[in-house]
């Protein structure tokens, strides 16, 4: 909705249309928060970064040329604001977390669940295969709470990417543009995040209710 009418929206904001601004600020709040939290240590500071970001956006609105989408532009301003704030807080910036997620290899599934590489017949095949997840429990409140906690426990950059992609429904390209990520790095962060959330879901939903199955 917003992407399709960037020009109209910008015109409305420049004209001082408070309702247009209110809708935008609401719609982007959660993703702004997730992204700010990549850089700054607390929720409270992230909220301040968002406030500063909107002030900067308003102040620079006349210079917005529409070469990128409004969304990309706002999120780039957020990232810069958050980085500056993080420096002021004396925080070591997790540049590596965003730019080189490949630094430390992380397996999507623990290696112990596969047959060893030197297995004579089926190296790298499942040893402990994934079991059916009970569909009827999938969307239960408790299951969703498990998923929420798993996402909260992720490193901030993975948490931001999975939130934008899978909670907010952004495309990979939107995430890459907003966070200035390469295609590979966006995918690595999403891949690791989904793999960990899947593992949490599997652990929770296949936990033996009494008897242990081998």
């Amino acid at each position, binding site marked *: 909705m917003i992407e399709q009418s960037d020009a109209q929206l910008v015109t409305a904001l420049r004209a001082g249309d408070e309702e247009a601004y209110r809708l935008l600020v609401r719609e982007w709040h959660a993703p702004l928060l997730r992204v700010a939290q990549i850089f700054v240590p607390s929720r409270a500071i992230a909220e301040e970064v968002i406030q500063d970001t909107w002030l900067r956006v308003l102040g620079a609105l006349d210079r917005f040329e529409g070469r990128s989408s409004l969304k990309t532009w706002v999120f780039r301003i957020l990232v810069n604001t958050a980085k500056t704030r993080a420096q002021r807080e004396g925080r070591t910036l997790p540049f590596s977390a965003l730019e080189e997620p490949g630094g430390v290899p992380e397996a999507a*599934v623990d*290696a112990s669940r596969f047959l060893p590489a030197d297995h004579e017949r089926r190296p790298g095949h499942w040893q402990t295969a994934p079991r059916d997840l009970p569909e009827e429990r999938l969307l239960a409140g408790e299951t969703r709470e498990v998923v929420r906690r798993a996402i909260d426990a992720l490193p901030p950059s993975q948490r931001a990417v999975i939130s934008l992609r899978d909670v907010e429904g952004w495309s990979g390209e939107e995430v890459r543009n907003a966070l200035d990520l390469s295609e590979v790095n966006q995918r690595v962060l999403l891949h690791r995040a*989904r793999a960990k959330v899947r593992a949490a879901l599997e652990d929770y939903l296949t936990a033996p209710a009494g008897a242990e199955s081998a």
Partner: protein
Amino acid sequence: MSTVTETTELSCQEFVELVTAYLDGGLTERERSRFEGHLGACGHCAEYLEQIRQTIRVTGTLRAEDLSPEAEAELLEAFRGWRSAP
């Protein structure tokens, strides 16, 4: 099964690392046919892929955090200040 066949096919351990690229349409033609070939032959990996899809589905039902009324009021205040600035 001959060892030659084993080494040219994807292993399950390799398969699980390609799932995100597959779902995003990011595999090359050749990678995709290897991936789908393995998928068709391996029920365990089919189950893994299904679990990733289920994970995405559950994640999609989470509600994003709302803007608090206080924070919204502050943002609107800033907007009015900006609007009335000369």
